[in-house]
């Protein structure tokens, strides 16, 4: 397909990421991008070029992201984007998978003393523009016959700051983001995340329609990470695992069986991903889990056989 060829030719993946969401995509003080979404792109680069660093990043805010992808400004958009019917069908986009199962939640200040979102009628809500959150919020309050006022900001920075200044009673966003945003508060412990989840938010990398080859590569880069976790292949042990007798492991690592050429890449594509980016679990823990400031538990994002719903088709 055109995108696949174009990416291969230019030698790097142009990756659309969020302008700054700790754990998902944010720069460290050296200016290097870090996060789950960033790793999604790195995985694709590792599969395609054997080098996870062949990625260039375009920070996008919520408003711009689809236009940027549609116009070809970026090759893939792993930017914590919810998979919805409209987006999948009318925008000319394809969702390649789900790298994070999320749901929309609320964050309120402790001082407010509420336990449930149901007590929030009449509340003023800070929210980021151009997200499904905006629509879910409207639905939720309408369904529960509650009133609200939404104050919509361009970027998450302003949203947090407005929340902090007391401009609104609560901040709503995907739960993962709530944790990420909470650490941006001057005093993170002053806010709590309410238990309610008001929507399904499957987040995943998006590509343009019309290039199945590219779509496959993005989708299977993610699946490879999930399969690797399931099979116990990690960044550390991947080299030893090359010698493993387990046929599943051998297939995943391209030692035998299925060939990389079906994806148009090297046989060691999955090996490269695991070696350089890690399996899904490692990626999760490093960016948003216990190894990070966010400390989000796996929850739904655990593998299917560990009580979660992350389930990848087998590589065979």
């Amino acid at each position, binding site marked *: 397909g*055109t995108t696949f060829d174009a990416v291969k030719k230019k030698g790097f993946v142009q990756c659309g990421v969020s302008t700054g969401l700790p754990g998902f995509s944010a*720069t460290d003080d050296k*200016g290097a991008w870090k996060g789950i979404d960033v790793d999604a792109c790195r995985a694709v680069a590792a599969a395609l070029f054997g080098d996870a660093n062949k990625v260039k990043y375009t*920070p996008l805010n919520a408003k*711009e992201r689809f236009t*940027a992808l549609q116009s*070809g*400004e970026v090759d893939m958009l792993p930017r914590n984007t919810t998979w919805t019917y409209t987006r999948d069908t009318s925008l000319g986009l394809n969702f390649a998978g789900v790298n994070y199962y999320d749901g929309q939640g609320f964050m309120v200040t402790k001082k407010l003393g509420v336990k449930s979102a149901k007590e929030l009628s009449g509340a003023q809500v800070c929210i980021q523009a151009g997200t499904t959150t905006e629509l879910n919020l409207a639905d939720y309050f309408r369904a529960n016959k509650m009133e609200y006022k939404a104050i919509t900001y361009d970027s998450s920075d302003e949203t947090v700051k407005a929340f902090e200044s007391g401009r609104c009673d609560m901040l709503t966003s995907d739960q993962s983001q709530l944790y990420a945003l909470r*650490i941006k508060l001057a005093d993170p412990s002053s806010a709590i995340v309410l238990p309610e989840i008001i929507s399904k938010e499957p987040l995943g990398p998006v590509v343009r329609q019309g290039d199945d080859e590219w779509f496959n590569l993005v989708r299977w880069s993610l699946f490879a990470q999930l399969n690797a976790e399931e099979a116990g292949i990690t960044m550390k042990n991947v080299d030893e695992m090359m010698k493993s007798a387990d046929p599943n492991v051998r297939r995943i690592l391209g030692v035998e069986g299925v060939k990389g050429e079906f994806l148009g890449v090297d046989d060691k594509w999955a090996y490269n991903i695991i070696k350089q980016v890690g399996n899904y679990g490692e990626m999760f823990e490093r960016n948003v889990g216990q190894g990070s400031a966010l400390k989000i538990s796996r929850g739904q994002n655990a593998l299917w056989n560990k009580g979660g719903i992350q389930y990848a088709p087998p590589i065979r």
Partner: protein
Amino acid sequence: MSHNFVPLPDQPPPTASVGAIGWLRRNLFSSIGNTLLTLLSIYVLAVSLPPVINWAFIDADWVGVSRDACTSGGACWVFVSARFETFMYGFFPAEETWRINLIYGSLFLCMAPLFFDKFPYKVQLGAFVIFVFPIFGFILMFGGVFGLTPVETSQWGGMTLTLLLASVGCVAALPLGILLALGRQATNMPAVKSMCVLFIEFWRGVPLITVLFMSSVMLPLFLPEGVSFDKLLRALIGITLFQSAYMAEVVRGGLQAIPKGQYEAADALGLSYWKKMGLIVLPQAMKIVIPGIVNTFIALFKDTTLVIIVGLLEILGMVQNALNDPNWLGYSTEGYVFTAFMFWIFCFSMSRYSQALERKLHTGHKR
């Protein structure tokens, strides 16, 4: 009988009208209304200044490397000094920042003579700075030749990017603006004239953020499939087109200020249209419009903050980015104050410069 006129000696003026008292009376307490106003302003200043000064200077922390140094309760300038490098150079690799410094230094050396009245080669030097220097700067910034490590445009940022956007935007818009201004003056070609007018009015009528949005995310839609270029370059194209419309209006003002006799004399000598413009009219017009150009440059310089909207991190963007750093959360005021100060210094000194130029050009025009 005639006698000589001996002028009386000058006497000192009555004490009440000179010296400190005279000054105070004339300037602060000349009438009841003025006295009230003076007292009111003194009161307002007395109430509002001390807390600000306390916060910004007296209680402020200046030295240190981390937020632990900020304990006095005032401003934490440590944040600015710790992040100063990124504010200035963006994510330009630390070991390569000498290249940016070299650009600044050499630019300064090139510009310095322009401020001396006596310097004879102003025009040539100015042309060098405008046309040749950018190439030199571009090579240094971009690298990739002469053994310089290539640095991606996505790593450019901070004040460097601010200056780059504003100056490249301005320099590139100049020729386009001149053409547009000439086109707008071309009364014998109504079609060309109206196209120029349309172009100018279009760009002057739309907000810069929509232009930036268009250039950054929509441009690839307008181009043939597969054609794509750098994001920074696209923002620059947007800015240049936008700026050229303003430039055109400034240049038009200059062209209109050239007396008709100059055109006629050039015609009478047999100079063709382009020679007339290039040798006679434009050199004179450009001199007149320098203050105007500086003013549009200031406007553009301030407007570069809008590129955050398309994800380019100029100085304000860099500051906001630093505010996301978990180690430095909560120092946004310091960050914004610092940014405001940087912009103010640049804009204020440039506007003073342009005012001085204007005065120089209009000497003898006072009442």
